[in-house]
């Protein structure tokens, strides 16, 4: 899980082009949207694409989005519980 969280932080920074943000600046449980990292709805779409591309994980129910994308740890948990074996 720790490795996945570390990878996700780097991928989020790259995918969203978060300038002047380093992986260590993002807390595992820090909120990504709103007052946390300050991401917005376009970033949410970028994160959905990221999960699909890198982890072959699809978000089937949009209503689950806020819960899944709350923090890097919740995203990692979602990937772990939904990844296709050997994918």
């Amino acid at each position, binding site marked *: 899980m720790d490795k996945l969280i570390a990878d996700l932080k780097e991928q989020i920074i790259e995918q*969203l*082009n*978060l*300038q*002047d943000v380093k992986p260590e600046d993002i807390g595992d449980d820090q909120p990504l949207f709103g007052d946390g990292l300050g991401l917005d709805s*376009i970033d949410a*779409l*970028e994160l959905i*694409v990221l999960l*699909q591309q890198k982890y072959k994980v699809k978000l089937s129910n949009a209503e689950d989005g806020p819960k899944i994308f709350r923090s890097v740890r919740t995203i990692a948990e979602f990937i772990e519980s939904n990844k296709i074996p050997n994918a």
Partner: protein
Amino acid sequence: MYIRAASNISPQNTFGNQPFLQELAEYTGDRLSCIEPDYKALIDPKLIRRMSRIIKMGVAAGMDCLKQAGIQIPDAIITGTAYGCLEDTNTFLSKMVQQNEEALAPTAFIQSTHNTISAQIALLLQCHQYNNTFVNGGASFENALLDAMMLLYEGEASNVLVGGIDEVTANSHAILKRMGLYRSQPVSNFELFNAPGKGTMAGEGSAFFILSKEASGADWAKIDSVSSFYKPRNTAEIKQQISIFLQSQNTNIHEIDLVITGNNGDLKNDAVYGQLQQYDFAGVPAINYKALCGEYPTSSAFAMWLAAHEIKNGTCSFVSESEEIPLKKVLIYNHYQMIHHSLILLSAC
């Protein structure tokens, strides 16, 4: 219509508090690229992360213009661009192919539309006023200018932000080069006119202006008129258009202090300028500008910035190093690929 402020990001040091074209940048090859400022000092870093190069160039020049004029919210934002946000378009289309049209990231698509720059400026300012973008090839900037003039003359606006923007990308450069637009052999922009040949040098730029209906007392210049015409049949028709344009402004070529023409070092392209300079513009001091910014569809915005600057300074030192000529009226004549032709007449306030 008065030019209250102007800002220009170009292949020369034209942005910010730079001395006016004091040290010219030389480029060897077939392309001139913009000298870009530190955007972090100009645009909120949170917003920069989604902006491609042309968006940053447009937003920075637009915001700088507003700052110079002391205007927080303009009555309208109007841009002209032939190619729009090419880099984003390229990213989006490439991803479509690479990813089999699946799982496409939204940002490049959202930012790829031609009106992104005027929209980004409006978003930054929270400006809900008139917002328009003209995409009409080599007449894009002129049409943006005409729209601004109509808004001002009809009393719909008092201050309008108008800009002309285009970028060169690796792909657009390669495609246009294959079409024969650019030189096959490297050339220096300083030698472009000493060694005319087939093709020119690619260019790009972002020039913005605050245009106002009323004089502010500190305006750069006045725009008397703008006109564009499409695919003239021959040189006689071009001469006729210029004559009609000047007559409509109750002037003639002998009252013009300086003509700025769009020569680009391509023999075919420059033939018409040669004829005009030999006969119709004979005796009138003339300069050209594309050695400074390269050739691109909205380069007339660079020419207007140059003219406004020269008028603001009151003299033109480009014609002869030993002689400065006083400026009251400046005529810009440019054409892009012999398709879109335009005339802009400026005068001192």
